[in-house]
């Protein structure tokens, strides 16, 4: 065993150099507004530490192990005290594992055999993991506990983020490679000042949840998890897509003034959507469950522009019965008596396989049998859904319109409209414009369909041939790109020529500046997550239709998304004052 030569702490991280340097990180703004708070790193998988021989100071390495085990135990106990009740007992039992004296002996043995602290911990936990796993299923939960503690200790020793979502005690900025629904499901919006992710684009899960929570987010921010240390104060600007580390007081004060202005703007916002000169633009909400409808009504939605019906079908091995569907739809429609609700029929594909649709695995689900294409292979499923939607609307008094996803051309549109009429639907039947071919030939589609609704997320993905799920392609997922604006203009012009509505229900509608541009391009209604409605309503009311048209023309004259955004904002002078 080596002699003690280094004191404890020699290996510890450098002290934070607050104030000495201002560091700014750039990403893609995915949810508007600004937030300030300490960084909390949300970890992904903790890597297995390599078994490289350790030739340094063993005594110091042992001290690091002790410190890491004790810190993890203290953290678990602290969380337990805060949680109370049954959770406290569970967390205290976990802390006991981190403080286990036999485990500590194993760690010492491995370090003395020449392993690094992280590898020694990995090996020691492995011994007990094998013992517990022998006891069978009964012990599976303990094995999972043990793995979790091991990962927390190893993460500390390697200097990487601990696994899972840490419990928040103060309003914090969450920094992660990416976040999964399981991470965000239990978040308290009051404790989240902002989101920063390395991966993902404006349509990633993090972006969508951030907008729903009305919390700023910057996504596709390269290097965020390595450049940002836990506890560093961050200013997240979700409008500009910027993050400042340890901002000075003047910057913080300016940001807070903008936030105050924004909050005042939002609280004054009410009434139906219209431009400053009275051009009406109905503002609608996107909803995916009965839970969303309350938020939509509270935010003053004039109706629903996109009712996603997937929640009725997911995790089902057989199609839900017509009666069951009627009940589920009623729960959503009941708040919208006398108002427009645009329901989208089931949008499934090989990436969300549903057994009763019989979609085979495909190499590229985004370009496969999905949306209307899938429903046309299962006409009974489509017919039952159409009848159930119609029955639910009749019972709730909602003014139902129904549209089909993934429509490519006039033949698709015709097939859907015929299916709807065959089931006795009398209200408007329309199609989503998500495929460039549908935007380019919208006029022929409108010979069959009663309205168009632009799904800008998928339309962007298909226009740039850039998968929405691939983080490294996030830069393409930018609805400001003039190529996308051209397609929106093509669809909107076809709508105007036919005297039929052309709305937008993609996330593009939720960005105030872009919402003004869409109106300038001739879009007739905007549908978005409820949290975005007040700012969009205010931004529209602050500009005339002519200003919106000028902004649209300036954006289309640009050559890149960034230029288009800058040009449009220059034509929309009130945005800055609104904090938008």
């Amino acid at each position, binding site marked *: 065993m080596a002699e003690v030569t280094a004191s404890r702490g020699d290996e510890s991280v450098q002290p934070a150099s607050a104030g000495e340097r201002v560091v700014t990180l750039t990403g893609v703004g995915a949810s508007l507004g600004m937030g300030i708070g300490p960084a909390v790193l949300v970890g992904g998988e903790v890597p297995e530490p390599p078994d490289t021989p350790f030739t340094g100071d063993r005594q110091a390495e042992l001290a690091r192990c002790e410190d890491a085990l004790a810190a993890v135990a203290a953290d678990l106990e602290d969380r337990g005290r805060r949680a109370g009740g049954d959770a406290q*007992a569970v967390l*205290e*039992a976990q802390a*006991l*594992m981190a403080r*286990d*004296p*036999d*485990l500590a002996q194993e760690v010492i043995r491995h370090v003395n055999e020449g392993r690094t602290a992280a590898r020694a911990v990995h090996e020691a936990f492995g011994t*007990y993991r094998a*013992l*517990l796993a*022998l*006891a069978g299923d*009964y*012990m599976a939960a*303990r094995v999972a506990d*043990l793995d979790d503690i091991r990962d927390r200790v190893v993460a500390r020793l390697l200097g990487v983020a601990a696994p899972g979502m840490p419990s928040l005690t103060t309003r914090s900025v969450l920094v992660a490679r990416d976040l999964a629904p399981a991470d965000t499901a239990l978040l308290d919006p009051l404790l989240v000042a902002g989101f920063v992710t390395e991966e993902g684009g404006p349509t990633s899960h993090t972006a969508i949840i951030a907008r729903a929570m009305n919390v700023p987010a910057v996504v596709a921010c390269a290097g965020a998890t390595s450049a940002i240390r836990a506890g560093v104060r961050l200013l997240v600007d979700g409008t500009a897509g910027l993050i400042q580390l340890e901002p000075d007081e003047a910057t913080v004060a300016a940001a807070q003034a903008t936030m105050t202005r924004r909050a005042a703007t939002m609280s004054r916002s009410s009434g139906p959507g219209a431009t400053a000169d009275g051009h009406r633009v109905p503002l609608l909400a996107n909803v995916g469950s009965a839970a969303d409808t309350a938020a939509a009504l509270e935010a003053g939605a004039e109706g629903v522009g996109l009712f996603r019906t997937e929640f009725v079908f997911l995790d089902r091995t057989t199609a839900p019965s017509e009666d069951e569907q009627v009940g589920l739809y009623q729960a959503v429609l009941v708040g919208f008596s006398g108002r427009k609700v645009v329901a989208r029929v089931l949008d499934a594909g090989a990436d969300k396989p549903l057994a009763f649709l019989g979609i085979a695995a495909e190499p590229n689900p985004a370009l496969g049998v999905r949306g209307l294409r899938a429903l046309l292979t299962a006409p009974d499923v489509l017919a039952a859904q159409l009848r159930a939607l119609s029955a639910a609307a009749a019972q709730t008094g909602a003014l139902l319109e129904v549209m089909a996803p993934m429509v490519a051309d006039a033949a698709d549109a015709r097939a859907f409209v015929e299916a709807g009429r065959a089931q006795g639907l009398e209200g408007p039947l329309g199609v989503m414009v998500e495929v460039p071919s549908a935007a380019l030939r919208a006029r022929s589609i409108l010979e069959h369909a009663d309205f168009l609704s632009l799904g800008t997320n998928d339309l962007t993905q298909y226009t740039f041939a850039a998968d929405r799920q691939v983080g490294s392609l996030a830069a393409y997922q930018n609805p400001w790109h003039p190529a996308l604006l051209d397609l929106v203009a093509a669809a909107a012009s076809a709508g105007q020529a036919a005297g039929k509505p052309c709305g937008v229900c993609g996330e593009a509608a939720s960005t105030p500046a872009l919402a003004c541009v869409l109106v300038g391009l001739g879009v007739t209604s905007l549908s978005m997550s409820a949290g975005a409605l007040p700012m969009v309503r205010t931004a529209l009311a602050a500009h005339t239709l002519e200003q919106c048209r000028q902004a649209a023309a300036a954006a289309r004259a640009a050559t890149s998304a960034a230029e288009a955004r800058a040009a449009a904002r220059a034509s929309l002078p009130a945005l800055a004052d609104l904090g938008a």
Partner: protein
Amino acid sequence: MAELTVTVPDGVGLHARPAAVFVQAAARAPADVTVGRPGGEHVNARSILAVLALDVRGGEQIVLRADGDGADEALAAAEKAILDPDAAHG
């Protein structure tokens, strides 16, 4: 060497919370305590992982052992934690 045989109450056995209470009692006890099945190998009662790995079920008999000063007191505390985890906790 002091030794005591205890029948674990029906229920989850020496798992979950009862195991934690037992280990905490052993950690506070004035002498080292070991635990094992009759005739079986003994493990450190202060090690939650070793105790869990024994996989003792409700209704089973286990043997507690302690040595030296405070051995009797340590065994009594450990037994109490097994027989009445609610009272022994905290």
